[in-house]
């Protein structure tokens, strides 16, 4: 018997296989009738709960579950619409299948089955524990004790149950749903109800990725711009923000707190407010052009109509938003750089530029690489700045059905495709591609950084 109890040395969770091989007849019967093992040890409430779960599950599968799995594979066959009923002599509206709901139903059923498997395993474990306690001559755990354990020995279950349910319902389930949509033809021509959509395999991926696909001419340029944008938005902000932080931090500068406050103030204003305001300022007749005309007599700058100007504009305005963030993040770290380094450099006669490139920058890069990677990822997904500032303008007629503009990032294109144009399947493919790019990119970056390889320190 003792060999079976090795699990107690690790996590205290008995493997189901062990429970089944070492379990008696009641424990084994639990695989078919959940709660059976608990009943045999007089744990009535636990047993009833397990049994109730099993009966509910069986009822669900019979009434909805099995059908939803069948529908999941076909995504519906009946198209709704008007049909002439000859017997009554009128047109009748028939409710067709709603592919979207069928897909969702299928995903939900899969999750219900998975959840049931979890409970089923818990039932077997519970039965085995009860058996073991009886064999050891102890009382089986009472229901009350099971509950109080949730606040002590099993606190992780008690604490994490609700948050994890939230994550499963509002993150994992929708993610799976969206990923599946990438393999269907759910677009503006196949909107349920009224129309059906169907599985199409990797067709959407090849439309985007292969050179001859009709979306390739949109996807690649937008990807290119997204990376250019993320690069400038991240590194310009970083370097300029650091220089500013150093300037504020240097010995001779007075009113340090005031300068920091002024920069922090612009972060404090809700981004949608400041960005929308700046958007109106850079319009053709906005205040910037007005001031240019009144002060210098210069003609209107095509902030939002010329591609290059618009792209430079968003990067520059993003400096206005991003630099304060860098200052706040970096000030604390700057003050931690060992002063001996600077003193030594001073003795060697190094100028400010040399100390910056030889000491400050390498030190900061070492400490803040994870932050930089996060910022880079954040900028690839920087929805707010582009959407509120330019809305993707200037328009690009050569992009797919005019769904994207020249300053659109993949993420704003995704928004426009799904929300404005209902091209769900393509939007979903783009979401997946963005994920793949980000996941591989950040994995490589993390692994090649100094702070990942060597957690010990800079020197």
């Amino acid at each position, binding site marked *: 018997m003792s060999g079976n109890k090795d699990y107690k040395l690790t996590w205290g969770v008995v493997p189901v296989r062990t429970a089944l091989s070492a379990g008696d007849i009641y424990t084994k019967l639990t695989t078919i009738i959940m709660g059976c093992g608990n009943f045999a040890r007089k744990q009535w409430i636990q047993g009833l709960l397990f049994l109730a779960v099993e009966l509910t599950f069986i009822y669900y599968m019979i009434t909805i579950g099995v059908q939803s799995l069948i529908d999941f594979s076909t995504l519906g066959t009946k198209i709704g619409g008007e049909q002439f009923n000859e017997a009554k002599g009128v047109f009748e509206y028939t409710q067709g299948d709603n592919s979207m709901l069928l897909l969702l139903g299928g995903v939900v059923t899969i999750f219900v089955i998975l959840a049931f498997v979890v409970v089923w395993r818990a039932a077997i474990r519970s039965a085995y524990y009860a058996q073991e306690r009886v064999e050891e001559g102890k009382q089986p755990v009472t229901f009350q004790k099971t509950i109080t354990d949730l*606040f002590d020995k099993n606190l992780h279950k008690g604490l994490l149950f609700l948050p994890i349910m939230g994550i499963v319902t*509002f993150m994992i389930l929708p993610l799976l749903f969206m990923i599946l949509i990438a393999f269907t033809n759910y677009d503006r021509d196949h909107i349920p109800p009224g129309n059906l959509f169907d599985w199409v395999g990797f067709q959407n991926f090849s439309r985007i990725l292969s050179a001859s696909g009709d979306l390739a001419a949109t996807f690649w340029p937008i990807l290119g711009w997204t990376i250019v944008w993320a690069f400038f938005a991240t590194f310009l902000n970083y370097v300029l923000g650091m220089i500013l932080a150093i300037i504020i931090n240097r010995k001779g500068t007075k009113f340090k707190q005031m300068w920091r406050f002024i920069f922090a103030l612009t972060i404090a204003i809700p981004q949608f*407010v400041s960005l929308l305001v700046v958007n109106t300022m850079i*319009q053709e007749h906005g205040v910037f052009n007005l001031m240019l005309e009144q002060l210098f007599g210069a003609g209107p700058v095509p902030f939002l109509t010329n591609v290059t100007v618009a792209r430079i504009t968003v990067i520059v305005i993003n400096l206005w938003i991003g630099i304060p963030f860098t200052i706040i993040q970096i000030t604390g770290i700057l003050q931690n750089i060992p002063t001996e380094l600077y003193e030594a450099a001073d003795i060697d006669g190094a100028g400010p530029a040399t100390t910056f490139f030889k000491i400050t920058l390498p030190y900061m890069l070492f400490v803040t690489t994870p932050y930089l990677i996060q910022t880079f990822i954040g900028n690839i997904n920087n929805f707010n700045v582009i959407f509120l500032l330019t809305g993707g303008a200037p328009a690009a007629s050569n992009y797919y059905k005019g769904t994207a503009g020249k300053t659109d990032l993949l993420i704003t294109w995704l928004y426009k495709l799904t*929300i404005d144009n209902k091209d769900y399947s393509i939007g979903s493919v783009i979401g997946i591609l963005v994920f793949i790019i980000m996941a591989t990119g950040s994995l490589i970056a993390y692994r090649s950084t100094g702070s990942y390889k060597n957690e010990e320190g800079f020197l």
Partner: protein
Amino acid sequence: MRDKQKQGSARTKQRIMDAIVHIFLTILSIIWLFPVFWIVLLSFREQKGQYIKTFWPEKFTFANYQKLFFETDIFNFPRWFGNTLLISVFSCLITTFFVLAVSYGMSRLRFKLRKPFLNIALVLGMFPGFFSMVAVYYILKALGLTEGPKIYLALIMAYSGTAGLGFYISKGFFDTIPKALDEAGMIDGATKWQIFTKITIPLSKPIVVYTLLGAFMGPWLDFVFAKVIVGPSQEYYTVAVGLYTMLTKENIINWYAPFAAGAVCISIPISALFLYLQRFYAEGMSGAVKG
């Protein structure tokens, strides 16, 4: 003599440098504050519409604020304010519980699925934020939560549902609380729940406040999620969606200045909260036990 001269010229150099730095910072401050100043100026401007002819308003007025708060037949700003307040209070409570629970679990409790959970959280964080938003909308719709007052519930759930993934900062904080305190509690016979609520949480005031305020601000700042979930029913708009709507093509002529007034009204409390929050963030970052 020569030494003194050298010192003197170094000091002049230093002074010139200081002057340049201060001028530079002043110019930058003006650039940074200009849009802020502009919103305030706009909100008192009498002239309607987006296209203005002079930089300085010809006439100042409170009419925009009046219109915002009392002409509620088209855009009901006070109601949006109430909506947002209601949603943010509830979602902030749920979010804080979720975040603290998960952080504590990841920091202090040891169980089989801890490592897998950390890895899954990392991967989930890499999906574009609102990639799944459309699907969330359909799930909420399938639950019948996208019409009528149930929209409140839908938004609260959407804002706080995935909060458990935002545990990194507070987990880092909990990690700095000495384990000896837990052990002392355990010797005195405290359950793990009691250790969590009676020892860890009281020691974590900065991070609790940070989480609470951060979560409270969420619904005031977000507008994409609210826009998708609320759809066209204006009475359930949050402030952000409402203000955004004021700037759409058909409304901007009449509502540009009231928009600025609304922006001022929202920005003042939010900025104050944010600046207040910054203190707790700095405190939280420096850990529970000061060296």
